[in-house]
């Protein structure tokens, strides 16, 4: 009986280890390859671990001014669009959650339906408009597109978070003579904080990883973001320089890794709220 249980445990942990290796393999490979020379990458049998830490790839990538610009574009576009989404979406979600106004439900339906619209169904008119307005290949254009496309899900996540704030908490503050603005900042928002963090992370990651819109609406270092730059390196005409590609790829992975370590429970929460709640 005891032996049976031990064997079961061992099998369980082997299974768990297997799942983790498969989940992490491409990330691990990208990390290790970013320290390899081109000869090491093209070696057979394949080596997973570099002979020594070869930092050259990182210097090569960030010695080139265009890659610094792509990184800057990614940071500027992602943070600005995320901020806009959080502020506008937060206001809208607050209204949806706390005020019973005419059309509350039908407006919420519009939000829900637009959330499901695929980007490819929007890009043709958006491209024509961007060309006409002269905003094609600008960060501003990309910021507006990102802010709009992430709004529906953010509103939904924030509304769910606001709905869950216990009314008794607000009532107690009112009885104590707290004014509504103070209640909002001191009680309401802190009580909804986990949900707000969830919406923030999901919005940030969506913008940071976004590829289709960036691929279509950017063409020069003026607005090109990291995902497009990485994709371009994968299509290099004279063979791919894997060391450089993976070094640049690491910058694209970095926020994901940090977020996964620190705040994975918010991501899980967002994923569930965004689908089943």
């Amino acid at each position: 009986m005891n032996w049976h249980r031990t064997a079961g445990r061992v099998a369980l942990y082997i299974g768990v280890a297997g799942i983790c290796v498969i989940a992490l393999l491409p990330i691990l490979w990208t990390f290790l390859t970013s320290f390899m020379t081109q000869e090491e990458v093209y070696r057979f049998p394949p080596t997973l671990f570099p002979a020594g830490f070869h930092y050259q790839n990182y210097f090569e990538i960030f010695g080139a001014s265009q890659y610094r610009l792509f990184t800057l574009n990614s940071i500027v576009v992602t943070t600005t669009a995320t901020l806009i989404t959080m502020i506008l979406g937060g206001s809208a979600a607050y209204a949806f959650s706390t005020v019973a106004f005419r059309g509350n439900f039908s407006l919420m339906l519009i939000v829900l339906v637009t959330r499901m619209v695929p980007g490819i169904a929007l890009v043709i008119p958006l491209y024509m408009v961007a060309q006409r307005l002269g905003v094609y290949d600008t960060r501003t254009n990309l910021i507006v597109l990102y802010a709009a496309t992430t709004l529906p899900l953010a509103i939904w996540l924030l509304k769910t978070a606001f709905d869950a704030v216990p009314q008794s908490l607000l009532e107690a503050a009112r009885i104590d003579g707290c004014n509504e603005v103070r209640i909002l900042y001191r009680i309401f928002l802190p009580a909804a904080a986990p949900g707000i963090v969830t919406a923030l992370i999901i919005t940030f990651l969506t913008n940071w990883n976004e590829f289709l819109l960036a691929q279509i609406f950017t063409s020069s270092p003026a607005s090109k973001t990291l995902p497009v730059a990485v994709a371009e390196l994968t299509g290099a005409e004279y063979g791919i320089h894997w060391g450089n590609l993976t070094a640049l790829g690491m910058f694209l992975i970095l926020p994901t890794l940090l977020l996964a370590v620190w705040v994975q429970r918010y991501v899980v929460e967002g994923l569930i709220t965004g689908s089943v709640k």
Partner: protein
Amino acid sequence: MGGNTSAGAPLARRLRGHAGSVHGGRLAAHQRLVAYGLIAPSLLLILGVMAYPMVYTTFLSFHTRILTRPALGTRFVGLANYLRAVQDPLFRQVFGQTLYFVIASLALELAIGLGLALFLHRQFRGRNVVRGLILLPWMLSPVVAAFSWAWLLNDAYGLVNYLLVQGGIIQAPHSWLGTVGFAMPAIILVDVWRELPFVTVVLLAGLQSIPSEVREAARVDGASATGTFFHVTLPLLKPSILVALLMRTMMAVRLFELVFIMTKGGPASSTDVLATYTYREAFLNFNMGYASSLAVVILLVSLAMSLVYIRTMRSEGHLR
């Protein structure tokens, strides 16, 4: 899954009651005005960037519009674009391949996801760490996922071929992404790798919402483990499964990045899907009218899925 609904809608009603009882109707009207003001900016952005393009794409799909030939203008052609699509052998191939991709990846994700969810539902040390780790593929940039798997699957230097040859499973390295009949399954597997965390987490949440007493009661009544699974757990899990299926279908019909980076639709168009085909028609051939009709097909599938989704949510009491 439950839980938040009971705390949800009453907030609005109670707030309205509060305003009404203390300050009378005028404040309630004022509050409504503020509410519209708070929602207006979001709504304008959503309508401008999402609703208007949806309408205009539909409009364009009944017209000829070629950006490289501006002299042609926008000419009404009725259903010609749709007829052209139906008669185009490449479109029929692409449509079939998209369907193949959607069905195969969904079936695999559901089967493996269910197994994984049951597995992770068990108690073991480090469970939370593992649940965090398995989320990484889903959070990872699809561009990075695409190029790293493309290299791992490389015919001459890839780790996958090396392991398969070493393990005696295949005789010689195989060009997975370069062979018709193997490229699409390879992309399906990479997509399963990417989307499995989503399906697993949704199903896991569903499993956790089933009270353990329900299953224990079934066991006490003499049901076997498999009997309990098929007659108790699975039926109770049905709403979660449906939600996972709907959300994944919506995402799968718009598959783009993996194909764009791993195969560019090749070899011999065997991995071309609706989104990559539409992208090419619109942004390489600038054939906006025809591309719009293709976009409308993707849009309709997504909207149909979202309507079913909203109905499911309403019948489950999550939306009022």
